[in-house]
């Protein structure tokens, strides 16, 4: 049975009428019409659907609406804008990271939380923090350069 949920997304409240078991991803994409995050696997293995829940990166493809509560949801679009970009977005453009670009949410949302909590991380620490996030085009080398660049900007 569907229920009413109030979702706090990128600083705005939205009411969604949906099945409590429905993963947050579908509410964001279809009910709220956000074109990010993406469906990648549906089983929390890739990161394409990553958003922040109270600043913590989660896979929205397996997070039911019933588990979201009052948490503040931030999507990639809420992380920064062309006018006020997040350092990772700036670094991604500088390093020309993406190829197809479908994986971006996983890397940037995961790295954003990591860099916020870890100043001046080593390369090994960055890799460890990003382990498990997938990119099929093989842009890992540029991803790493961009995260290091952003780390320097945020340091």
């Amino acid at each position: 049975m569907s229920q009413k949920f109030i979702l706090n997304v990128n600083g705005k409240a939205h009411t969604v009428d949906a099945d409590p078991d429905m993963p947050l991803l579908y509410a964001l994409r279809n009910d709220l019409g956000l074109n990010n995050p993406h469906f990648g696997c549906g089983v929390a293995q890739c990161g394409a659907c990553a958003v922040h829940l109270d600043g913590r990166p989660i896979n929205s493809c397996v997070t039911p609406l019933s588990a979201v509560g009052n948490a503040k949801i931030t999507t990639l679009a809420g992380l920064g804008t062309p006018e006020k970009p997040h350092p990772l977005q700036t670094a991604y453009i500088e390093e020309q990271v993406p190829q197809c670009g479908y994986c971006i949410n996983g890397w940037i949302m995961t790295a954003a939380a990591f860099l916020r909590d870890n100043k001046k991380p080593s390369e090994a620490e960055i890799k460890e923090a990003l382990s498990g996030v997938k990119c099929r085009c093989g842009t890992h080398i540029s991803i790493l350069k961009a995260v290091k660049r952003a780390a320097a900007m945020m340091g």
Partner: protein
Amino acid sequence: MTKFENKASFTRRSVLLGGGALVVSVGAAVSLDTVLSIQQAGAQGAKPPLTPDQLSSYIAVNADGSVSAFFGKMDMGHGLRVAIAQMVAEELDVPFKAVKVFMGDTATSVNQGGASGSTGIHFGGKQMRMAAAEARRVLIEMAAAKLDAAAANMIVVNGVVSDAFNRDKTTSYAELIGGKYFNVQLDWNKKLGNELYAPGKAQPKKPSEYKIVGQPIKREDVAPKVFCQEDFCTDIKVPGMVHGRMIRPAVAGAVPVKVDEASIKDIPGAQVVWDKGFLGVVADKEWDAIKAAQKLRVEWSQVVPPFPNQASLYDHIRKAPVRKSEVEQQNGNVEEVFKTAARVIEAEYEWPFQSHSSMGPACALVEIKDGEVTCWSGTQKSHFVQQGLALTLNVPLDKVRVIWAMGPGSYGRNDADDCAMDAAVLAKAVAKPVRLQYTREQGTGWDPKGPASTHKARAALDVAGKVIAYEFSSKAFSRVDVNTNGGHPWDTLAGHTMGVALKSGDGFGVPAESYAFDNKKLSWETIPPLLDRSSPLRSAHLRDPVGPQIHFASESFIDEVAAAVGADPIEFRLRYIKEPRDVAVIKAAAEKAQWDARPSPRRDQSAGKVSGRGIAYAQRNGTRVAIIAEVDIDRSTGKIWARKFTVAHDCGQIINPDGLVKCIEGNIVQGVSRTLCEEVTFDNKMVTSIDWKTYPILDITETPAQVNVVLINHPELPPTGAGEPSIRPVAAAIANAIFDATGVRIRRVPFSPDRVKQALS
């Protein structure tokens, strides 16, 4: 957000065009407002037809002087869009930013073959360059006539045409033709697809005149992607759209015999679409479609499990009947010379089925309205999908429009074309627009696979250790059980499930190199597919189709021969390679990597952690690449870290060096993944590698620390491809480095920790 809410939203493109009207053939005067109107103009006879022999099919000058380039290929993420704009801007003498490239829309471009075989620049760019050059020639003639000056005296700067001897005589592209169509016939070779070529009378510029080609111009699609402003095909929505999901059998080849529609009656709007083996569901909401696909009770036909056990895959290939064989290269008399050999070296190599495993499973949206079909797809081949949809839906070709939008990654014939056909069948059945996205399990489990293969190589040596004969042969599943595109029902799951049998084509390949052995024979044999339709192990093109497997074997083997005669692997190769550009890439890689000339394996192989270096090289349709891999091996775990790569790359004329380097880096990382991690698993019923756990790819913790690229530029030569050549030698370079480090030769991919550990023990 939904930028494609209705057809009127195509005015978005007119915004991109700077508000300029794209109008009418030279001479006839009809005004049009949008790119979309090209179709209408065509219908009114106001525009030359969208055919390959018309300049207007490739290039248009807008009222504001900006240029639209209509490209029948598309950029799958390597920055091709930038490179094409550079080539067009260069020939036309307009600023790079004045050119917008519209890609892969069947309503605005002719069939240039789609993304295919690293030909985006090689063939696609060549055509766009010639079209732009012809446009410039025509514009100069028009300017000369208008200014009453000699065409030979005209100069063009940023789209402004002047008489070099009287600068007061000046006009512009915008004034000459802005907002009107060219009505200029090209000399079309009557071919479609990659081979399409339609030059005009103009000669393109000399490379010494280039100002824009060769510059490291950045991609314009990166910022929109990181700020979520660009739609993927997954993001497109139209009014009244419903969501679809497909249902596949648990045993390959089974078809539904009973479908209990009552089992999903509680799901709002859920509807079953069942036609023979085709089974899907739709619902108004995506989550409801997902639930309906999961809940629908289906009884499947009992079929004999069609596959061999995976452990016997390579035995199956070796024992299978040969369906077709071909000797692609032969010189001398290999058989006779082997009889005289002082020594014979032989080896056999094996490569598994591999999956595209794109970042997301395929998605397509199909709308059928008033007899007209519109499909948004991430396909690499929109013009072929147009044909496939026309055949699948039994409608005329001109009633189908396919609009390419960036898909979730694409490396060949992945699941995109199947998805477009399935979506069309659903849309027709429910008479509503259907957005279909596959599941991860379907994306990885049911995509067309890169074929599994075996490869035999042997070399005859004389007493001095000279190679006097060489033979290389592959026996494998065909590279094209289904074609490179969904252009026919027999090439799609929709066709198969509704009763059309596979028409497996024959083809494989041979090593592409220039070893000048006096007696040499390169050949292949193909075997029948495992299942005649709806097979999750049907083969098709996966990035550099059959290249990685063939060159893993051939370049590993060359290394084996070098080791057998105690030669340094590079010095040995250079004894036989005479092609100067091949020699140059090998020497460039060796110099950059500071190659230490000595035979492999190295002397100190006994430590727990050892390192080695290996080289491999290959050609690909005019491009040549040499790769040196430096790897670390942990004997206790069998874990390999392909730590450093040095790549020397020669693809003729370089259009954009930065884009090229990124493209090569991606090739290397994906190549490492395919070498170390990737293997489709299956039991006798079904593919069992269905997600990222069961089909793992390279993790960032395993990524090479360095990929050093040496670009060899030949501005005087035509550009060839870069999308795939550098993935080709990766596996052999790693295998050769492992041998160098350990003295152990691993002849089966992937080099998983278990396999490496076992090989080293």
